[in-house]
Each structure stands twice: as C-alpha cells, then as structure tokens.
C-alpha cells in the first residue's frame, strides 16, 4: 500500500510516558537530540530501557553514553488501524524494533518511507520528533 507523503505521522495525541528518576536522563538527552543510553562500567553491556541494574551482569555501575544513532530494523509492522486510541487518526504508523549498533534494541517509529520500502535488516539512522515540550521521541529513518 502506497501512502501519501510517506509515513510521517504527526505524533499528535500520542500517549505520553511517565518520566521517573530512573529514566529522566534518557528523555532529557532525547530532547537534546543526542540520545544517551546506560553502558555498564563492569561488562560494557548497553542497556535499554533505563534502570539501575545491568541486565547482563547485575552491576550497579554505569555511565550515560551517547549512541551513534545507527542501527538495523530487527522487525517492524505498519499499523493501519488504532481505533479507540487518541492517535487513531494519525495512522498508518511504521513501528519497529531497532537493533542499535551498540547492541541494545528499542522500539521506535520508522519515518519518511513507504510501507513497501521497509525490510528487516535495513540500516536506519536516528531522527527525532517532539510530542510536546517535554517529550521528544527518538525516531528512525532509512539510512
């Protein structure tokens, strides 16, 4: 299915995350268009989502570290119908799991492409889109 003006959802009426102390730096860095993730000081594992403990080795030592913004599509879908959700008129949306070159995987939207352009394994590069003054989402576009 070809969509007019590519897949470029407005982000209007998107659900907002609850920002807590553990996750604040992530959202702050997204607002600055320079996303940082926690890298474990002990084993080097890049983790996502943010939290106090390394998922891999259990260490509490970490450093917020900028990511390259490069990754690949691990999987994706194009959502055509979101009835009952506040953003139901802002579809279709390409939703994907992006495997960053650092190893972490995160959910995001793949923007500015046609549904038929999307394939698992394609390289993507980070972009950003603001829902409001407080929340900016890290988004991805085909590299």
């Amino acid at each position, binding site marked *: 299915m070809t969509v007019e003006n590519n897949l470029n959802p407005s982000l209007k009426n*998107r659900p907002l995350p609850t920002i807590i102390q553990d996750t604040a730096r992530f959202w702050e860095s997204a607002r600055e268009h320079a996303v940082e993730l926690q890298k474990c000081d002990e084993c080097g594992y890049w983790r996502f989502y943010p939290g106090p403990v390394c998922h891999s080795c259990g260490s509490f030592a970490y450093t917020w570290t900028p990511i390259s913004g490069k990754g690949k599509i691990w999987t994706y879908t194009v*959502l055509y*119908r979101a009835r*009952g*959700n506040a953003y139901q008129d802002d579809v279709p949306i390409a*939703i994907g799991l992006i495997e960053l070159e650092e190893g972490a995987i*995160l*959910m995001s939207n793949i923007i500015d492409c046609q549904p038929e352009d999307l394939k698992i394994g394609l390289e993507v590069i980070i972009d950003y889109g603001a829902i409001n003054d407080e929340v900016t989402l890290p988004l991805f576009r085909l590299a």
Partner: protein
Amino acid sequence: MGKKAVISGIGESRLGKLPDQTMLEFTFEAAKKACDDAGITFQDLDGLILHPAFHVSPRYHIYMTEMMGLYCKTYCDTTQMGGAGFGAALERAKGAVESGQSRHILILGGEKMATGMASGAAMMASAGAHNLDFEYPFGATVPSYYGMLAQRYLYEYGKGPETFAQVAVTIRKHAHRNPLAYMRDLITVDDVLNSRMVSEPHHLLDCALVSDGAGAYVVSAQGTSKDPKREVGFLGFGQAQSFYHMAQLARGYGDHDLIHSVIDVAGKRAFGEAGLKPEDMDVIEIYDSFTSTVVIQLEDLGFCGRGEAGEWLASGIADPDGAQPMTTHGGLLSCAHPGASGGMHHIIEAVKQVRHEAGPTQAKKADVVLATSVSAVASNFAVTILNSAAA
C-alpha cells in the same frame, strides 16, 4: 496431605455480545454453572482464584467472594499473568487442594469487552498490559505487537502470510461445528489475506474477536463432586515467563527470543510430568489471540518443525477429522474473546472433550487433551495436560 486434585466442574455464560446482562451477572452465572456441575453450592467453596477484568479494584477477588456470600476463605487471590493465568491458576489450585489448604477452589473470569466499553476501548485497555513509557508512545497496539512478531517469523523462515492465514482457516473449521461460536462461516486462505489489513502482516481475520462472556471451573479433592466419573485429572503442568518489553524479548537470552519463546520450557515440564510426547496428545486446545500466537506455540512445543506450522496445518492434521484436532470450540479467533476469561474456554473445552461431552465439536479420541494459555506478546505461558481422573 490432601487428596489428588481434579477439575470437578465447569461453567460458561453465553458468549458473544451480551448487552442485556451486566458483567457481574454473567460472571456469576458462569460461577453458578460450574458449582452446579460439580454438585456443590457457593457455600462449599473455600477458595477463589480470579482472573481480574481490566480496570477493576485491586481487591476484586475479595469483592467477588463477598457478593457470593463467602465470608471466610483459606485461599483467595488473583492471577496477573494475563492470558497465561487461565492455566497457571489451575496449577495453583491443584497445589492448594493437594496440600489440604482448600477443598473446593473456584477459578473465575469474565469481561464485557464488546458491549461494556466504548467502541475500540478494549484494545486501549489492554495496552496497559504492555509498556506505557517506551512502547505505547510509539503507537504500539496489541495487534501491532503481534504484527512485529509475525513479520520476524516470516523473515527468519522465508515464509509468506498464508502461514498465519492457515491458522484462521483451520480454527474456523472447528467453529463451523460449534453453534455457540460467533463466526461460523468457513473461510479460505484468500479470505484471510483479502480481509482488511490491521497491522502488517496481520489482517483482520488474523486477530481475535472482541466479546462478552465469562468462564469458571472448580478444582476439588478427587471424589468430592456429585459424579466422580466425570472428574478430570491433571496429567502434566508447565509454566514459563520471559520478559516484558518487546525490545527485551527480541534481544533474547540464550536460545530464546521473540519467536523462540519460553513455552518450550513449559511444554517440556508438562510433557515430562505426563510421560508423554506432543504426538500423544489426542486434542490440542491452543490459545489463539492471533494466528501468529498459534504458529509460535506449535513449533516451540514440538508439534511440528521450525518454520513448518503452515504446512503442518494445511495437511489437515489439526482439522476436526484430523489426528490432532486443534482449538475445537473455535477459540478466540472464531468463537469468542471475552478478555479476562478468553483462554478459560480452551480449558473448559478441554474438560468437555475429556468427558466426551463436547457435543458437535467432540473429537473421536480425547483421552489426553492439551490446553495452552498465553499472554503479553508470547512471553507468559502455561501448558496443561488433562485426562479422565478415573482413568
């Protein structure tokens, strides 16, 4: 030490669209039928495990026993495993009965998803089951989660969406025989692929229904129901839970990831306890929230090889007259999906099959019946293997 535990009674409300009944009315209707089936009254119950509806009090289980007039219980709790709770609750109840903690435990769930919520709100309600901070802001709905799982499956095995469509076709053949099923007309693979796209690669007919209804079963000490010959025994149990965020499921651990689910662990335990293999199951009631949910389970449980579920189903083996009829009531895809009780009907159907009381959906051979329960994008699982307790 108490006696061996059995399923002593089952009950279901009407399923589908029930605008004329409240959620509480049809939920207690199912409870009453299950108790009647076991030959006990509400006052004989001393335990309840409730599968909570969306947006209810954290004390819903206490409230429900209060409405039934059960002042003192020795076991009263909820399961918070989503769709996996239907089977997992049975294992809890079995333990409580066999340890002597309780004598008769009611497992109950019901939800008014079709006529009790604003249009489309059922999908939004269930979004709370998934991450609200790092996933929902990207517009992820339940069908889009399974869409992502399904897309990865197609990529890994070089398959097309007809693999998933075949699940809907097979299950509809069973629903066709069930007068209580909501969708009964036979469908083809093309019908599924030509139905409206919801979230690639899943079309409308790859997705479960949204329904009203309730289910209940009673777990008791063997020989305490009105007709011990109809009691159903537990041959094997298994449960396994993995992660919460879909990105973490994808990143995986060891041999497991999004499309290599931990139901293999639950299955190995259940088959091991029963001393049986997948091919020994006479009937398989596979939880079917989406067609991809079924494909993942069939392969991870070992009913067929990796990437082979589509061909396995197309062979007719899981059809009504096949060697291993699957989801014989028509499941969530074609019979009904009332949220909190959705997967209870797989277990209720399994009990009917073992008792040879399934009527139009009865399989010829149903000595050993497997039922699965799944939730949260193929991350929480329970596997139950039943037979006749008298066997």
